């Protein structure tokens, strides 16, 4: 059963711990101090937004019919066997055309510090237990990494899935 990062919107306090953990986990050095000393520019792939009193982390949902997969004209965006959608680690390289950025309804794809390749959640930050860095870092339980059946499927989709995605999706 694949696990997904789910968001409990009511619990987010906007502390940005997830962003820091994500950015650091994706550095070579794996620690903020060492990464900065080594001249790396840590970039987070999860975003925390605030609207009024509402705060929430938003990251890639690894959509079933991911629009970014359709849009990638370099063939770099692909789905791994565990369901992760990523533009890293495959044979084809991202060229930074931002087609994926143009079609992601969550605004969950960003660029690297140099602005040359697209960066997104690749779940390449999981520890021995398989838990992603953002989830480990979340002090309030706003981010949960769990088997999808643990959550009511319609609620999960109700939360984000159908609302913004719109349009082409089905097959």
């Amino acid at each position, binding site marked *: 059963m694949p696990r997904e990062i*789910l968001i*409990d*919107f*009511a*619990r987010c306090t906007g502390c940005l711990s997830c962003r820091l953990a994500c950015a650091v986990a994706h550095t070579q050095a794996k620690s903020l101090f060492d990464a900065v000393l080594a001249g790396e520019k840590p970039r987070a792939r999860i*975003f925390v*937004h*605030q*609207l009024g009193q*509402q705060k*929430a982390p*938003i990251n890639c949902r690894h959509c079933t*019919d991911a*629009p970014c*997969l*359709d*849009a990638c*004209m*370099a*063939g770099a965006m692909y789905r791994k066997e565990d369901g992760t959608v990523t533009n890293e680690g*495959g*044979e*084809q*390289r991202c*060229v*930074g*055309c*931002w*087609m*994926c*950025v*143009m*079609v*992601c*309804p*969550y*605004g969950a*794809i*960003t*660029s690297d510090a140099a*602005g040359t390749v697209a960066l997104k959640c690749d779940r390449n930050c999981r520890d021995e237990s398989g838990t992603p860095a953002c989830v480990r870092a979340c002090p309030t*339980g706003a981010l949960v990494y769990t088997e999808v059946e643990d*959550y*009511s499927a319609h*609620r*999960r989709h*109700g*939360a*984000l899935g159908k*609302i*913004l*995605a*719109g*349009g*082409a999706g*089905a*097959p």
Partner: protein
Amino acid sequence: MHFVVIGTSAAGIAALETLRRLGGTRARLTAVTDEPSEPYSRCLLPDLLAGKKSEYSIRLRPAGFFPKLGVEFLAGFKVVALHPEEKKVFLEDGRQLSFDRLLVATGASPVMPEVPGVDTRGVFALRTLQDAREMASLFPRVSRAMILGGGLVGLKAALALKVAGVPHVTVAVASPRLLTRQLDEEAAAMVERELTAAGLEFIYNAQPRAFVPGPHGTLAGVELADGRELPADLAVVAKGVRPNVQLVREAGGLVGAGIEVDRYLRTSLPDVFAAGDCVQVTDRLTGRKTNSALWTLAAEQGRYAAANMLGLARSYPPPLTRLNSARFGNLDVVAVGKMEGEEVLRAFEGTTGTYRRLVFEGDRLVGFILAGKVKGAGVYTALVKTGRPAWKWRHLLLEGRAGRVVLGCLPPQRRVESKIS
């Protein structure tokens, strides 16, 4: 069940992958293409010209893709005839292929101007790997290149030639400015500044009247409609594409602005489907029928067509037919939907050098342009696509705070509901 797919670019590949994913291992898949080898990304041909990419690195899929997917791959064969009543296609070498369901994903071909000398050696389009190879073989002897067309392909080709070391690159544009179909004046001017800084030259209101060969039969210059003759030893024609409809038309299928398909991407011929640049689509916003010609749409249609070929009856929603993202030098540009409408809001953000244009009709965002910083562009696209009320978000959108809009679009109960158990 034998599925035959003609064409192995965006639509063809998406279809083959979907046919296998949803159709299981028993479906027999055959792919035919007139391209001589493995699928490659046409959009990356300028990068190949510029020397930034190799032929190997512009391939669309990893080595061994077709065998792994269980697809019989026939490369280098043009399909010359389709007999729908016999359910057969004929290849140029005389071979016949019987199919149960056929997907026509034959793409589009460049429109060449009907002027004297268009066949002169040194006059190119940039559509195929072969075009790029031939063009690159001339590079050492090229000192002046002329690009005809100020659209996305023309500008990318022009920049690529400059990066490849061609000393003088001139873009001749029929309109008074660049990218008339994609951008407004402000954004186009930003692109022009960026490209001028990269060393490109522009001539506006310029149409070719003739390609002039030199004493050795190779291109010597381009004569413009206003009588000027400009020296050039390489010319690239980038004046749009025309859908490849011949196969279906000759078989008796209906053709409009492209091959006519219904919402299940069926052509008027039995068991013949079509997807990608060769089809006609209905624009989601204007309702106008137009040719498809966008990468994203081709991939989407390939998926939908495949599902329908398997009998799953998935209706393809009318797409947005203006959906462009490009990078020119250090300037990123995204343009989606309508350029004009009831209410147009524009803002320039000095700190990031970003220009934003929003087009509203009533409550609805129907189009936008982002030039500079394009972060969160997909949120704007989603609003255009879904037609959700967006007027109340106009300030956030104009400031580029798309993330907040994502939160705002969540249903209220979701925003306050606590732990989903």
